[in-house]
């Protein structure tokens, strides 16, 4: 074990390892269970590689400092859990409108309010999409294992840099705190995407003008000689505020389209036994592991059950779920909440198949048997 890169690692720890591999050099946050290890490991590792860590005075300041550091050129991250995710919402909207790449990790715990601080939940899935006010693009990924936490944290940074938008890593307490085998790949095997920058000294640089053939405007860093303006007000290509409805429409449409037009690049999912499935389990994050176990148990009983696991939660893999819905008797959505992503499944499926929900809101993990009994009920 010493020589190889195989380790037993917590999900939260793997998140930091992934972030650093992706180029994170700034972390700002506030202590909150069950995400604290992400701050602790960042505090320990970042200065060793010339990066910076700061524990801010509150959750709002955590994301604000991360946005500030990103504007000064560093890849930045903050991590939190339910109550802190609520507090960060205003500045999430800021980062979305001002197009500042940052990664926000939410290690979901039982809510609402202080709720169940040490217990798992997937109750923030809709908040990730609708938590801040106004319309805005959303990218949210949810890992099911420690290794995937490492991989998806890298992907969060890559997507944030590529699409100049805040990206959420929706962990849950199960995956965040679980220790599992992980093999850390060599840096040469990891794809790292850096933000598009303006040509040095470009006199005609407009901080919000998308050049031909690009998805987003190039992003200068403060101190690089461009002296640009960034605001949370609607702004034109120059970055300065505008009250023009035309400017607002153009900016808002561009923000939504930069994600909408690249769904194939952003959306990933895992499929198991979908081909002949009569019943498909749809589950994500820690709960998808229970669903996979339930699927295996069902197959042993001769039931044709498959598993669809969205890895990208937002934008939702609409096209694929629609296709699947045409060929199955039922979709069972298993998630640790009162019924959130199931609403999106129902919206997408539009009655093409029956949609059922297995939820849990008591802070306990959904067991494979609980999912299996739903399968037997609806088969």
């Amino acid at each position, binding site marked *: 074990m010493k020589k190889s890169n195989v380790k037993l690692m917590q999900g939260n720890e793997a998140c930091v390892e992934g972030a650093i591999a992706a180029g994170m050099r700034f972390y700002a946050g506030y202590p909150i269970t069950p995400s604290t290890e992400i701050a602790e490991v960042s505090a320990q590792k970042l200065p060793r590689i010339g990066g910076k860590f700061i524990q801010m005075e509150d959750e709002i300041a955590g994301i604000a*400092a991360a946005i500030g550091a990103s*504007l000064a050129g560093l890849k930045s991250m903050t991590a939190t859990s339910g109550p802190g995710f609520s507090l960060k919402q205003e500045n999430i909207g800021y980062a979305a409108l001002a197009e500042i790449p940052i990664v926000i990790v939410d290690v979901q715990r039982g809510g609402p309010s202080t709720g169940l601080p040490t217990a798992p939940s997937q109750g923030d899935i809709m908040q990730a999409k609708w938590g801040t006010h106004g319309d805005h693009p959303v990218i949210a990924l949810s890992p099911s294992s420690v290794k995937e936490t490492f991989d998806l944290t890298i992907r969060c940074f890559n997507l944030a840099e590529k699409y100049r938008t805040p990206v959420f890593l929706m962990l849950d307490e199960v995956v965040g705190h679980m220790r599992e085998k992980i093999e850390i790949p060599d840096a040469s095997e990891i794809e790292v995407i850096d933000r598009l920058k303006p040509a040095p000294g470009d006199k005609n640089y407009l901080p919000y003008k998308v050049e031909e053939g690009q998805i987003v405007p190039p992003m200068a860093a403060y101190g690089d000689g*461009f002296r640009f303006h960034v605001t949370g007000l609607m702004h034109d290509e120059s970055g300065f505020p505008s009250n023009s409805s035309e400017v607002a429409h153009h900016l808002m449409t561009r923000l939504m389209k930069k994600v909408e037009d690249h769904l194939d690049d952003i959306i990933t999912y895992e499929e198991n036994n979908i081909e002949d499935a009569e019943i498909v389990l749809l589950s994500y994050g820690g709960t998808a592991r229970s669903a996979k176990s339930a699927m295996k148990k069902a197959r042993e009983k001769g039931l044709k059950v498959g598993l669809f696991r969205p890895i990208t939660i937002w934008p939702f893999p609409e096209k694929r779920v629609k296709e699947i819905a045409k060929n199955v008797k039922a979709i069972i959505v298993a998630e640790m909440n009162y019924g959130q992503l199931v609403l999106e499944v129902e919206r997408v499926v539009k009655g093409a198949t029956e949609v059922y929900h297995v939820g849990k809101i008591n802070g306990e993990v959904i067991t494979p048997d609980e999912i299996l009994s739903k399968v037997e009920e609806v088969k």
Partner: protein
Amino acid sequence: MSSQLVKQYYRGNKLPHIWCPGCGHGILMRAVTQAIHNLGLDKDKVCVVSGIGCSSRAPGYMDFNTLHTTHGRALAFATGVKMARPELEVIVVTGDGDAAAIGGNHLIHAARRNINITTIVFNNNIYGMTGGQYSPTTPTGDLGTTAPYGNIDKSFDIAALAAAAGATYTARGTAYHVQQLIKLVENAIQNKGFSLVEAISICPTYYGRKNKKGSVVDMMHWLKDHAVDVKAAQKLPPEKLEGKFLIGEFKNVTEPEYTEEYQKIIDRFQKER
């Protein structure tokens, strides 16, 4: 000279500004700019950060690296900028509501860390942008649209608050005492640590009108007549200071600066390699 300053440091195509006729903020913004000019700072290495409110529109007119953030959060964003690039001269322009109400927590903690950020509070004793509600610096008894029967809150002394929280440089100036204010801002920028200059502005449109403070000229005279220099005040008997407020430099000490202390941690590991 003044037009030269405007040409050199302002974004001409963004002017005229949105502030009301007679507002003190234009004078304060110019004083900050003059101080930057006097110190000969490189425009590319200055970053001006603001929150939300009348004061916070200033960076939009100033030709530096500028960041107009969310309400109250300027110092938190600025902390990220400064940590990421300590070589930048980071200046926060904020208001009384922005800095001392919604952003009060960030203010005391930025001061506590003694991070090298210069904060200029444009204090007009009122929420102007939203139409004249009482702020944390509205004097007790004064009127605001949300204090129709007189404000019963006690007001904050922002400079004293910052000093108590750990700022290593604090001062107060006014829109009337411009030459002094420029000097105070210069000193604040030069201080290696957290600095705060409370710059008393005037708001004739809301605070002045609501509280029958008279014309813009009357309000300027009020500043002139009620400000007492902190050094002169030491020699005056208490009765002479009644109803007055102090201006000048309150605190100027040297203490370890945050980004330098963090750099020492990084350097420790560089040496180990």
